[in-house]
């Protein structure tokens, strides 16, 4: 492939901040009446929050990109933009290849259904064919380590178990681009290590974007790291370089506070 699997060019994304985006009819009617009475157009005041501001970066085929930054810096928004869950206000995003995203714990899993049913459901939500899931089912179950509870409704599972199912299905769906949000945090040590091992294995042939606060893991598996602060790319480069920069920054901020 001669082009980059992921390319962001001047991408900006805003969310309205002080009110929810959906409207109520009474508000809409209120606005209309006000307009008729006063002749002025007064729209409801909205304050926009720029989750991302003019972000540009490229991710190569054999890259494992780590994204670090504080809560609310815009890390998850980047993953959502890559996987087309949400769309940018401006700028262009190009993504080549099948995307497998594990964005949030338990997304797509239904509490009333059993582990088995959920593996099938989540697999098809991620775009796998039933045949594919059948083939990989034993591997998925083995990797997630939920054999014993396969036919129990997952509402009885712990949150670590949710993460296990979710990650396992995504890991075996064989995407070209693999997006992983801070979700390993809930798994126990053994499962975390297993995930990191799996990611290292996948990294040989796939593009991976990995969002995490676990800087050791980032240093361990990423080949490049982006540090994001308030929706802007502050630093982009080798893991050690960026992580040191981030640590310094965090330290100096602590003193200010």
């Amino acid at each position, binding site marked *: 492939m001669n082009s980059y699997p992921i390319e962001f060019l001047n991408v900006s994304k805003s969310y309205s901040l002080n009110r929810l*985006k*959906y*409207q109520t*009819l*009474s508000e809409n009617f209120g606005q209309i009446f006000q307009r008729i009475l006063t002749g002025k157009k007064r729209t409801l005041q909205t304050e926009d929050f720029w989750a991302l501001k003019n972000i540009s970066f490229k991710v190569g085929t054999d890259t494992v990109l780590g994204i670090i930054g504080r809560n609310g810096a815009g890390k998850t928004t980047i993953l959502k933009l890559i996987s087309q*869950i949400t769309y940018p206000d401006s700028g262009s995003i190009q993504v080549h290849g099948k995307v497998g995203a594990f964005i949030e714990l338990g*997304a797509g899993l239904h509490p009333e259904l059993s582990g088995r049913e959920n593996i*099938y459901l989540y697999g098809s*939500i991620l775009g796998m*064919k039933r045949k594919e899931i059948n083939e990989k089912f034993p591997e998925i179950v083995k990797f997630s380590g939920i054999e014993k509870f396969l036919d129990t409704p997952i509402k009885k599972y712990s949150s670590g178990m949710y993460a296990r199912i979710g990650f396992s299905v995504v890991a075996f769906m064989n995407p070209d681009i693999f997006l992983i949000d801070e979700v390993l945090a809930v798994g126990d040590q053994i499962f975390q290590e297993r995930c990191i091992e799996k990611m290292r294995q996948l990294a040989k042939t796939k593009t991976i974007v990995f969002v995490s606060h676990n800087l050791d893991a980032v240093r361990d598996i990423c080949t490049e790291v982006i540090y994001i602060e308030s929706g802007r790319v502050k630093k982009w480069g080798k893991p050690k370089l960026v992580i040191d920069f981030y640590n310094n920054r965090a330290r100096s901020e602590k003193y200010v506070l």
Partner: protein
Amino acid sequence: MYSWMLELWKYRELLFALSIREIKIRYKQTVFGILWAIIQPLSLMIVFTFVFSYFLKIDTGHVPYPIFAYSALLPWTFFSTSLYFGSLSVITNSSLITKVYFPREILPFSSLGVAILDLAVASFLFMGMVLVYNTPITFNLIFIPVILLVEIAFTAAILLIFSTLIVIWRDLKFVIPLITQLWFFATPVIYPLAKIPEKYRFIYMINPISIIVDDFRAVSVYGTQPNWYGLIIAGSISLFIFVAGYIFFKANEKRFADIV
């Protein structure tokens, strides 16, 4: 539009999987389970039979009132339950919308899948009634798939529009049951279409559901051909709203994850 269809086709297994999930969840932890698909139209039929056959004596020709009502309740219940569950489908699945990518129209469409199953289950009782009331079985039954196809197209169209609107205006959550109720009385379920004075008949012609209900009853109970003229109008209206609704849905779909 073609590329949407193509993508939908690519995700057909998800459509199937979500329909199955809907079915499993809807009847999970209920005592009667799938029997609810029969209980609903059955209980309405019983009440209607008392009120409109014993008290008010609506003339239904040679057809006994219970089967007259039930044959209309089948397509009507299909429409009303789809509308109820389907229009909420986007907001009830907000966790999917904000975390996974897939063509969003799969959500309202999958509630159609459940309605189709419900209809199939409820039809068993209908077949029993056909035998009990000795209703003649005619060749015209082969037109039922055509009528159902029009109904599915129309219902899908309405779902695309309502499920989008409800994301933007949550008020509609309360409006939809009201609309459904009014729509019910405007549809010839409890009374025959023939009872409507000629000069108001045109109102019924622009309501595809009333034609669908009337035709369904005509072919299944009265053993006549469907009203082709009406069915073609209903089909065209449905197709038109479907295309418009699909465009409307797709135009708003990208905002769903930010609003919902």
